[in-house]
């Protein structure tokens, strides 16, 4: 088991050792550890100072935070409604919302691009954030099934105490729905951070670019042909995600099963 785990991690190990080599050592032998007297951090230096990788981290982080908050706001309200409130046609609306999940990005991104161009939203952070609102159906799916399990007694008690709509959400739904909400935040953040197609076509400006698009620039040899620099860039970009994962493992692993057991 341990052995499998290590082989599983091999690709990442490969990245790490090669990012520390200078280019001629890389050509000599791609598998070996860097010669101990020649470990170089130059590749990382180039990636940070010249290629300015932190700027792209920042850009992506802004999208994650703002997009995440907006998606959360809309989804919590809607999920609360689907889970606990009744109104005519609720079932059909719910199915309709979930059905939009079946329309893949590749089918809609051409018109979305033209639509956004018409509205002047291309190459704006606002436009990008709006397009991430498309994560709402998936979020609703997860949250609704969890919210359904919130005991109705708590809700009734709050109502009797005279709580209005927003109070109920703040005082009952959110605290009781915390596990699912945390999960949704984590999953959505990872998805936005890793997204590629949307930023590729919507954010062309150098200073707005996200990390995934910037990396494809790096890998595309228009910036550098030195493989070691590319490798260093790839490694650095994965680092935040890996760190985040290590800290949040527990929640993530717990949450994978949430959507499946119905």
């Amino acid at each position, binding site marked *: 088991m341990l052995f499998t785990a290590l082989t599983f991690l091999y690709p990442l190990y490969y990245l790490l050792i090669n990012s520390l080599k200078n280019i001629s050592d890389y050509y000599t032998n791609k598998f070996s550890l860097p010669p101990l007297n020649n470990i170089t951090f130059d590749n990382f230096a180039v990636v940070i100072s010249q290629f300015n990788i932190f700027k792209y981290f920042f850009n992506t982080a*802004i999208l994650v935070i703002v997009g995440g908050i907006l998606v959360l706001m809309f989804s919590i309200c809607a999920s609360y409604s689907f889970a606990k409130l009744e109104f005519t046609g609720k079932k059909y609306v719910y199915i309709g919302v979930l059905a939009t999940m079946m329309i893949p990005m590749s089918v809609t991104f051409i018109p979305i691009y033209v639509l956004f161009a018409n509205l002047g939203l*291309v190459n704006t*952070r606002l436009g990008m*954030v709006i397009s991430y609102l498309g994560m709402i159906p998936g979020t609703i799916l997860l949250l609704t099934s969890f919210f359904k399990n919130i005991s109705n007694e708590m809700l009734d008690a709050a109502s009797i105490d005279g709580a209005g709509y927003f109070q109920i959400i703040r005082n009952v739904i959110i605290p009781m729905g915390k596990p699912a909400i945390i999960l949704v935040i984590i999953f959505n953040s990872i998805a936005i951070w890793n997204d590629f197609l949307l930023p590729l076509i919507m954010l062309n400006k150098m200073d707005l670019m996200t990390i995934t698009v910037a990396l494809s620039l790096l890998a595309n040899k228009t910036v550098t042909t030195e493989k070691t620099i590319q490798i260093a860039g790839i490694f650095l970009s994965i680092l935040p995600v890996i760190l985040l994962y290590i800290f949040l493992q527990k929640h993530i692993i717990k949450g994978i099963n949430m959507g499946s057991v119905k």
Partner: protein
Amino acid sequence: MQRKMSRFLVVLLVVIFAVSFTACGSGNTDKSPDADNTKSTTEPAPVKDVHLVLWTASGSLVSGSEAKLPQDQWVLSKMLRIFEERNPGVTVEVMVEPDQGQAHQTFKAAALAKNGPDVVNLWTGLYTTSLKEAAYILDGKVPQEDLDNLIGWETVREGFKSDGSIIAYPWGTTDAIGIGYSKKLINAAGLDFEANPPKTTAEFDAACEKIKATGVIPMVSDEGSWPANLYFIHNYWWQQLSGADTIAKENSGKMKFVDDNGLKDALTYYQSLYKNGYVNQDALSSTNATERFLTGEAAMRYVGVGSIPSLIDKMGDDLGVMPTPDMPGAKITGSQIGGVGQALVIANYSKNPEMAVKLCSFLNSAEFYKEYVKVNPCITIRKDFAFEDTGMDSLPIYKKLFGMAQKSILFTDNLVDSDAMNELAKQAPLVYSGKLTPEEALEAMDKQIAAKNK
């Protein structure tokens, strides 16, 4: 409850702030800020606040070597500040596309929305002329001295005729794509390309045999590095056998690619190079042609003017260059692929087309190019620049390339309909490795043209 309500309001306000923060971080493609116009000048400047947006790509107005540097250190940025000083009230904003191929598409969408850059840097030939409906036609708007001093106008004219409508400004460098070789390895095979380069493909085959016998790969190629990839190799032969007129007919569907013998022969010969082992057998997916050329595993590699500096760094005087050998029956000989590749298109929705013309003229001025060649030695498109003005060291190899560049014929892919060309580019590796016959590739190209003429 009051507290809770106000807490909610606070959250709402924070979110609104966050959203407006992101909105502020957006690009000002359609607003006209005037933040920089605090300089006072003595010139009578009647120009109101004019904001121009310029799209370019790395490897073009921003040279490859500069791309790693922060934006304000680019030659382009410095020269634009000078332009702004000379034209008070004008600010120019630069956006760099990661992928210039894609820029053509995003510009189209911008043209539809009438909302995008004022000047966009695209590729010459059909790439630009097919966008005629979105471009600001330059007939009568170009200063005479630019028409006289720059080469490459026919690449941006409709139909490539000398009296066609001018769709865009040419820009930048003229290239020459030739075969680079290691003199040492060539001599080891008993040949001397300096004195006696193979001029025909038959001679080339013979030479490759000799080189192969010494245990070295004659020519190395891969699927990534420009122009070492397989892309241009057959294009020159196609053009020299069939001519640009045939290509024009094929574009409009008046002639079919399957009937184009020139292209067929070019592809067949191209296939034979691989079959005879004159090119590395893993050319389809390898990514290390340069490595192999530098470490002496291979004797030849396709090079362009831009590839030379890094190669010379490692190889010094061992590097030589020669034109592509000619195929039998060629109409044009002794030349190679190259020509002017970059163009500056002014959008027809631009609110300030005259200023945009001024900008394009400035970007083509002698003073701009003088600064540009300091960081990126190249053969500019200015007729009044001699070899000494190219910034290239006076090495014989550079002088040879300079001479070759004067005789280049335009990149074939700029002449061919983009869908058909894309199809050829996709199928060429399959033809090369023998998995597809030339006829099948040509049929695929015809299908693309047929699909468009609906």
